[in-house]
């Protein structure tokens, strides 16, 4: 009897660890892309619709460049994409910035162009990338694929680093200032155009990194970024512009909700419920009394201070 109870507890603990690791892994993917899109949104107030396609660019670099070690391929993806992002921001986004919708459509066009170029160069056949770390590791008695764990931890570290930059450096302060009130930031000597350029490149590179990092667990094809956009947009929707911590938090909640629902029920039912919940929450958040309540709550937990 004792052995049975002990076995039951062991299985339960193992499945709990399994769920936590699944959330970590999915959060790594969603978190990198969401924080990236939130950085761009903070500085430009534009939803980058090419964010998913930048994930695809990172994954393709890891898939088609076969010579160097995997880590160098990820670095190459970042180095090669940075000038492209710079060009896109300078040549295509700067002028239509007065109209948010026009700029958003420009980013949609950029994404479409990226998909078509990749399809022309490499066809639409899916590719796979060999994980650089094979085998499994045991985490609290739960065996787990080693590379998947590494992926989650690296992504977590990068997200932490970005938040550190945003909240503990001068550049982070200027980014938040531009996000809060670009006109005021400009009057105080900050060049919002430069902040926007850096933010667009940084935000895009986070998506490229996500693509390269997660390429060994995904099918690499021209449309792979499309399915990632929906959870990422919900993450952005639930965050506050300029508050990157809330974007990371929203990505974590969305990853956790997705994993937990799929653990408790079939994938098909879980997806329906997932969308019902996130759309319901989005609709509720827009109600004035909820906004007022959350504003009071934030004042209770974060008392006003003179600074």
């Amino acid at each position, binding site marked *: 009897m004792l052995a049975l109870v002990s076995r039951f507890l062991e299985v339960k603990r193992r499945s709990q660890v399994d769920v936590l690791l699944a959330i970590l892994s999915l959060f790594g993917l969603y978190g990198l892309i969401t924080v990236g899109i939130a950085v761009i949104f903070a500085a430009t107030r534009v939803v980058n619709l090419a964010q998913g396609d930048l994930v695809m660019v990172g994954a393709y670099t890891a898939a088609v460049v076969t010579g160097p070690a995997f880590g160098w391929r990820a670095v190459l993806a970042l180095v090669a994409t940075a000038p492209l992002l710079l060009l896109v921001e300078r040549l295509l986004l700067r002028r239509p910035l007065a109209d948010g919708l026009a700029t958003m459509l420009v980013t949609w066009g950029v994404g479409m162009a990226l998909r078509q170029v990749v399809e022309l160069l490499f066809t639409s056949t899916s590719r796979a990338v060999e994980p650089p770390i094979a085998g499994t590791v045991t985490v609290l008695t739960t065996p787990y694929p080693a590379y998947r764990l590494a992926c989650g931890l690296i992504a977590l570290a990068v997200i932490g680093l970005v938040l550190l930059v945003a909240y503990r450096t001068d550049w982070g302060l200027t980014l938040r200032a531009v996000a809060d009130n670009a006109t005021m930031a400009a009057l105080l000597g900050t060049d919002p155009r430069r902040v926007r350029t850096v933010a667009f490149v940084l935000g895009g590179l986070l998506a490229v990194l996500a693509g390269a990092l997660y390429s060994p667990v995904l099918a690499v094809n021209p449309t792979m970024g499309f399915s990632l956009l929906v959870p990422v947009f919900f993450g952005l*929707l639930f965050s506050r512009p300029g508050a990157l911590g809330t974007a990371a938090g929203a990505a974590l909640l969305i990853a956790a909700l997705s994993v937990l629902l799929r653990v408790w029920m079939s994938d098909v039912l879980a997806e329906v419920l997932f969308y019902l919940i996130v759309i319901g929450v989005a609709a509720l958040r827009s109600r004035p009394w909820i906004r007022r309540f959350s504003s009071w709550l934030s004042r209770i937990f974060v008392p006003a201070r003179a600074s």
Partner: protein
Amino acid sequence: MAQPHFRPRTGILTVAALLVLTGCGGSAISGGQDDRSGSLKIGVIVPLTGPVSATGTALRRGFELGVKKVNDNGGVNGTKVEYVVVDDAGNPATSTQLARRLIQQDKVSIIFGTITGDTAEAVARVADDAKVPFGTAILGDTERCFPYQWGFGETTRQMLTPTIPELIKKYGKKVAIVGSDYNYPRFYAGVAKDLVKQSGGAIVAEEYSPLGQADWQPVITRLKDAKPDVALSMVVGADAVTFSQQASQFGLLTPGLGFEGAPLDTDYYPALSALVDGRTHTVRWTDRLDDAESRTFVADYRAAHDFDAPIPEVAGNAYFGIQFLLAAARKADGLEGPAINTEIGRLTFDSPLGKGTRFESANHRLQADMLEVTIKPGGAYEVSKKLGRIPDTTPKTGCA
């Protein structure tokens, strides 16, 4: 500096809703030849862009080589066969419009192509209304049968009837089924369940996941918990690669597990080679068939398209399928759809797909031979057993 007049939250919500509700629609393009009267004209509807464009391209290539062969041998009733290729991007609404255009403007006598079941059904409805024969080459079953639709790809029963007893004998009786969440994988599972029961096996897990799934861990965990001996996978598209990779990383897909289904198709070999090498797969045609016609087709295909990967089965089905349809057109009196359609139903045709292949009137599916292939490193789908004719006479409503 003025802030843009844009409501960001509304924008994000709109975009998110649009992405949930819509996919990328493909545009239609056309190509082809001049509109000469008197010659037989075929309309080819294939996805040349979008997620299934690789399969669509393979079908188009097989079709074009098939028509070239017929034209090199004198065409149909002394005139060269013409064709018009259009791109439906895998979108059923586009397929419907293109089918109408091909029939009304281009005056085609036969329609050929489509890859996904929904586009096939969309075209079949239009073809049926206009009484124009429509041939498909993709494997699997469509939801329903139409009097003017004819399927050259193998049916689910033709694939699974020889496969399931062998898998159960070799690996064990506990069978798990996993599929993408749409109609066909559920139909496939229904057929599989019948055959597993007949073979003395048991279904221990059945899982479906929406298309575009990036994280298969919860599904794989449930499948692993069921401890299956055999896994039948009808996870399709890019998800076939994602699922198989993650199943391997989580220790589900091991050499000790019997594995059959879509991920073993040649389309996925470039991505999944290490996971499928050494496994057996049931097919209708492989580029390693050793008859003269298949060898010529394979050589022409590789030379014309500088292609060295395994040639997708759909290309072979299209190559021999269009020759079948044109042989029927040759027998028909004139270029009228109903006459050609009648001959398609009557014709028996010899090809590498089998001697005396013909359509079953109860379901409009080709009754042809099947092969067991063993997947060798490098993508050689070598014939390991000729399974002969695997009949599927299961009646479907709507054929008559």
